């Protein structure tokens, strides 16, 4: 075996000759640099202005944040109502004392859990977080319970859910009267 190292053609470089001398003068170089830079800044600024405008649509096809869901008698005691999940992203739960509205957003990474009636729990299909009917997190990685929304009775006796106000258990907000409707 020869100890001589094989040197392929590729690694033998030819020394680069010096480029032809610059003809542009310093003053005109800076002039063109400033014009170019200003043009670039203006173009970029205009682009981002239009881009940011794009983030605020003229019309929003969103369901109202505050809505009526029917009369309290329509909700069975001990049952989790999933009728409003699709349109308003809330679950309505009624127990012996009253009713509350739970957010359908998992507190781990924001997937929508499913209500499993036989196991009586909300179970998230993304990372396996589980919540009781009260919204308390008890299994999987979810660090905090589901959020509740403000709920109260309208003048005509129907229940109104107001998603503009939410109540977090870990901040001790579930004790507030707005988070729970006594029926």
């Amino acid at each position, binding site marked *: 075996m020869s100890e001589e190292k094989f040197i392929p053609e590729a690694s033998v470089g030819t020394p680069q000759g010096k480029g032809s001398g610059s003809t542009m003068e310093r003053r005109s170089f800076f002039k063109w640099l400033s014009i170019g830079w200003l043009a670039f800044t203006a173009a970029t600024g205009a682009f981002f202005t239009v881009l940011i405008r794009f983030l605020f649509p003229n019309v929003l096809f969103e369901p109202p944040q505050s809505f009526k869901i029917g009369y309290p008698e329509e909700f069975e005691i001990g049952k989790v109502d999933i009728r409003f999940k*699709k349109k308003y992203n809330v679950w309505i739960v009624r127990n012996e004392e009253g009713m509350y509205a739970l957010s359908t957003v998992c507190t781990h990474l924001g*997937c929508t859990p499913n209500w499993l009636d036989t196991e009586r729990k909300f179970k998230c299909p993304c990372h*396996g977080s589980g919540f009781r009917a009260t919204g308390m997190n*008890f299994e999987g990685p979810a660090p905090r319970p589901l959020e509740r929304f403000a709920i109260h009775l309208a003048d005509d006796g129907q229940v109104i859910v107001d998603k503009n106000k939410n109540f977090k258990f*870990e901040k001790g907000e579930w004790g507030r009267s707005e988070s729970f409707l006594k029926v």
Partner: protein
Amino acid sequence: MDALKHAIDLLSAPTISFTLITVLFPFVFPPGDWFEKIHRKLGFWRIWTKPGLYISLVLITLFFIMGYYDPNFNITLTKPDNFPIILLVYSVVICTWLSMYKAYENDKRMDRGEKPAEYNDPDDKVLVWPDLVYIEFIALIIFMVFLIVWSVLVAAPLEEPANPAATPNPSKAPWYFLGLQEMLVYYDPWLAGVIFPGLIIVGLMAIPYITTSSDNLSGFYSFKERRVGIFLFMYGFLILWIFLIFIGTFFRGPNWNFFGPFEYWDPHKLVPLTNVNLSEYFWVKWIKTGLPSNILLRESIGFISVIIYLGVLPVLLAKYVLNDFLKKVGPVKFSFFVFFGLSMLSLPLKMYLRWMFNLKYIIAIPEWFFNI
């Protein structure tokens, strides 16, 4: 056959499969002399010979064929979404084998006192134009043909328009994110989704700069020169990434529960997963007082554990375990090495804490979105 399927189902439970693979791993990629001795004795080195490749490929193929004729495994195996994972298994095995095969050949040459195979190989270095560009161009055309044939033969697995009220169960990330999704089962989003991916990329890139070879030789395949580096990279890549993708694809079913490959995906499978935070373990279960209202006092045990893990443990390692390594690479490289190493180790560690003690978070401050 059913007994074999049942055995595979049992083995694939994460507690068992992950433990087995982790324990076996240092004997397949031995990072030290002691492991190397057993690696030679038990014949694990044979994996990196030609018969080793053939046997691995035959075993994997048999596993997939068995799965194809199983009513449950067939569903996940023939899903168009999962086809890339099957390709991935083959390509990872072949590429890992090829590099290790070449590395072992070179190690043998160098043991005999010869130069590595690349040293006198006239094809090792080629001209970019035309040689390399032509090779790349031909590879590109072949790959395009493959993609076109694939897209013509297999219909795209498109589903109905997204509906916020009906999340698919299980809900799976794109295949290349399934390792992250697996990590998210054990960690909070900002850790598993932001910090860890960053650390993984930087850490894997840092390995060759930390565990440099003995006399700064480079440019050829070798295992002996970089035992620790290759071991760490392979564990991080093959186990904590590829294996987690494989688990996420084939072993995660409805409600993100674990299912063996031949198990029926029962959406009502009951798995007790009640998880408890370290603070609750300490204050409620051991001291038997309620949780203190002061958040920092409540999580003090968690903070102390994290400080011990990331602050005290490196010092102990430097003093008693890795003192030779510290002398060799110096304090800066050593600190990076230990920091990345401990961060990497924290994933399997947290997995075991979850499996064994149902531990949810070591530090749990949902009030501040700070959970570890």
